[in-house]
């Protein structure tokens, strides 16, 4: 047993040594340093560290700029202060209530405003921070106005009142360790990849089944929770709060720390130590600290644009070099279907149709992109869609995928009407997708990209994922294995740990396909998979498509490469100016007069 466990522990230590170092540092700090002043600096630092964990995920992973987290910090502090001072509640209880109130408040803000484009969202958060600051300043009856709330009780543990600085330091240290642990776990696993995906390519993220709204609003609430708890701790630590602790400068400082730190909690922690340490040590100059932060921010952006973490460690993003475990070849049994949505489960066996479009019409402004298109696709078929440029091919895929809602008509997928579903819901039902232009998640490795395709294999949310106990770990293994299988299927295993942008174009296209396969879809929509490929690569692709179909995945592909479409497709749909002008076997279509007119007519015109 021990012989098995020892390497496991060793590998854990290798991967998670930072958190051990952090725990050690926190344990030793008050013992080694007896200075009253330095311990105070440590406590302030701890409060910033708690705050910045959520901001790191929100800003550097998910790309949501927040200028208003002072609002949540203030709410945590004020609710806790008011409940204890005015109502005489127990500090711990009021801290819990403060956290709950803040989360509810954050959620109410997040639901409408996270829909906005990121720049508008940043402005909304700026407004949020200002509103709470002004309320704290002006609702004198409740908040004490500018003079604040004095006499906030200290926290108690059993019979001990926590008044000594070292006691508070340890208490705050526990919170820091907790939030750092959770943040790091989230960053390394499925949700971290999802946030990265949302930041780098929201469209593709949706197509992979990521419910962007839901994930972001939960993350927003998590970051608000961190700030609120830090606020409560602050209130019970200095026993007095006033609006000046909660100005926009505080939000700016958090943001600056996150930007300098990069997409890695250790980077942001190190940044916080430098910045906050500096401004506390040079307390006399404290009014200069914002300027100093600004200076550092600009310098940092030029010296290490990906953040401090990326400069210190190999890369900012959760990055694991090939470990022996990952490369254990996955023995593929060709008879196991890659598609997890086995149709036997969800459908009566007589059902042959997987996708049915009836009378689809869609217009953009005055132009009709699709008019009255009907088509049906059976299980295990490969259906090609061809047509001149602007015929509405991609629009049709987007309608099926849920990126567009048709003006008229119905989409039936696996016996269910799905006309109005959104892309992430379609992904959940078993629809995979690749894009015409490469839509990969930049900055992630190939395997991480493909693992985003396996997003829906996991269900653990931000809390379970953060604690990383039991289920999330198993999910992670399942996702990684599925990703490896798709990579192996496409012959990309040796590229698994390369950053995706470093691959040549043809391989990037294959990564997109691998990512879609990793979703284990029932139906795969491919938008010009051969565009930009050379003839050898195209040849290889047609073999791949056949093998995908053999694994029980139905394919609909839009393609301009006629030889490819005509050889792999069972049926071909021809679109011209948004109308379906022909549907049939490749032979039927290629002899159809209208098709010839549509294509040749155009070519003749083009030639003359």
């Amino acid at each position: 047993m021990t012989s098995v466990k020892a390497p496991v522990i060793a590998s854990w230590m290798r991967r998670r040594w930072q958190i051990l170092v952090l725990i050690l540092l926190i344990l030793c700090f008050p013992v080694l340093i007896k200075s009253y002043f330095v311990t105070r600096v440590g406590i302030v630092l701890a409060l910033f560290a708690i705050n910045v964990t959520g901001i790191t995920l929100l800003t550097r992973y998910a790309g949501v700029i927040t200028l208003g987290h002072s609002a949540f910090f203030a709410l945590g502090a004020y609710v806790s202060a008011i409940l204890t001072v005015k109502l005489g509640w127990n500090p711990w209880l009021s801290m819990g209530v403060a956290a709950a109130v803040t989360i509810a408040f954050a959620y109410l803000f997040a639901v409408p405003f996270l829909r906005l484009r990121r720049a508008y969202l940043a402005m909304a958060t700026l407004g949020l921070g200002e509103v709470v600051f002004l309320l704290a300043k002006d609702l004198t009856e409740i908040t004490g106005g500018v003079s604040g709330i004095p006499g906030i009780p200290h926290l108690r543990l059993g019979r001990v009142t926590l008044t000594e600085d070292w006691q508070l330091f340890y208490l705050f240290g526990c919170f820091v360790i907790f939030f750092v642990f959770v943040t790091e776990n989230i960053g390394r696993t499925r949700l971290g990849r999802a946030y990265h995906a949302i930041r780098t390519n929201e469209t593709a993220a949706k197509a992979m089944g990521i419910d962007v709204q839901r994930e972001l609003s939960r993350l927003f609430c998590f970051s608000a929770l961190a700030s609120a708890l830090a606020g409560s701790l602050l209130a019970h630590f200095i026993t007095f709060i006033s609006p000046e602790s909660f100005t926009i400068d505080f939000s700016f400082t958090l943001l600056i720390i996150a930007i300098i730190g990069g997409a890695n909690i250790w980077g942001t922690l190190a940044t916080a130590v430098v910045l906050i340490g500096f401004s506390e040590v040079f307390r006399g100059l404290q009014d200069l600290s914002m300027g100093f932060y600004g200076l550092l921010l600009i310098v940092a952006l030029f010296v290490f644009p990906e953040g401090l973490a990326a400069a210190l460690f190999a890369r900012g993003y959760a990055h694991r070099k090939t470990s022996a475990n990952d490369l254990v070849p996955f023995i593929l049994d060709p008879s196991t279907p890659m598609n997890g949505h086995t149709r036997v489960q969800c459908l009566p066996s007589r059902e042959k149709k997987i996708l049915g479009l009836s009378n689809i019409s869609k217009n953009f402004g005055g132009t009709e992109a699709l008019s009255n298109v009907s088509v049906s696709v059976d299980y295990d078929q490969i259906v090609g869609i061809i047509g001149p440029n602007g015929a509405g091919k991609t629009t049709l895929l987007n309608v099926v995928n849920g990126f567009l809602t048709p003006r008229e008509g119905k989409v039936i997928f696996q016996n269910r009407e799905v006309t109005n579903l959104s892309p992430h819901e379609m992904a959940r039902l078993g629809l995979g997708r690749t894009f015409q232009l490469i839509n990969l998640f930049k900055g992630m490795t190939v395997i991480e990209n493909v693992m985003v395709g396996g997003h829906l294999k996991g269900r653990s949310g931000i809390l379970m994922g953060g604690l990383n106990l039991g289920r999330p770990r198993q999910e992670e293994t399942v996702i990684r294995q599925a990703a490896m299988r798709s990579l192996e299927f496409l012959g990309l295993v040796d590229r698994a740990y390369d950053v995706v942008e470093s691959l040549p174009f043809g391989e990037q296209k294959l990564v997109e396909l691998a990512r879609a396969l990793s979703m284990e879809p029932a139906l795969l929509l491919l938008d010009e998979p051969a565009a930009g490929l050379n003839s050898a690569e195209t040849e290889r692709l047609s073999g791949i498509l056949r093998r995908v179909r053999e694994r029980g995945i139905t394919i609909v592909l839009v393609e301009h490469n006629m030889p490819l479409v005509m050889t792999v497709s069972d049926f071909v749909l021809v679109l011209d100016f948004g109308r379906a002008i022909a549907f049939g076997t490749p032979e039927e279509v290629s002899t159809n007069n209208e098709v010839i007119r549509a294509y040749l007519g155009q070519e003749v015109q083009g030639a003359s």
Partner: protein
Amino acid sequence: MVEYILQFLASAITEGSIYVLIGLGLVIIHRSTEVMYFAQGTIAMAGGVALYGLFTQGHIPLVAAIPASLLVCIILALASQWIVVLPLLERGVTPLSVSMITIGFATILDMVAMILFGKDPLAVPSFSGDEPAKIFGASIVPQDFWIVGLTILVLFLTLVFFKKTWIGKAMTGLGDNALLAKASGFPVRRLFTFSFVFAGLVGGLAGIVSAPISYTGYWVGTRLVIKGFVAAAVGGINNPVGALLGGLIIGFFESFTAGFISSRLKDLITILLLLLVLRLRPQGLMGEKQIG
């Protein structure tokens, strides 16, 4: 009652004019670079404290002190473009991130202003005396006329610029699509430079004309830029006319809230207005809906 309303109206237009000027700079920069220029308030602050330094401390006559202060603002705005905005955009940093970096630039300027002029509020005398004019019972200080007059002048010149000059027309045509601008062989750098000169000019003007009606000092930048953003966002971040409308609306809301309800609530009302507009019409009142 009527004189009260007139009084509030006057202060609405005066305050609003300052927000219009700040908002206008933000809109022009956002149009050409997609950057939200957080240093705009600090540029205005720089105009105010420069005027304090030259006029109040240095006893340089206004006719020379005002242009010199404006020049300081333009140089600072250009410096932010050359040091921060352009290099980062060219390295592929997203405009949103660059926006955040302009906060850094602003905090540095604030710090410099604090070192040079200290933390105390700085008073700049009015341009032409403090004897209020009585108009229908409302008393209006001469500085208000300066503010409104210069704002109208700037708006007029801006309008002429957009209608008559080739770069103005090009900016209108290309709008907020920098990529298209680049693809069509447009001298994007020159467009950037122009936007920052413009922002320095209007921002500086806002700080200069408003310095006599309220104290100035290193801290005013943040307040001003927040108000400017509210003006720009309410009107439409890409639309100069929107900035005019947004600035005036905010001026009205602030002035009438302060007059009829409580001056404590005026900032709050402004921010709530921002959130309301973002909620109901994120592109702003005059903004065009963007697809996608």
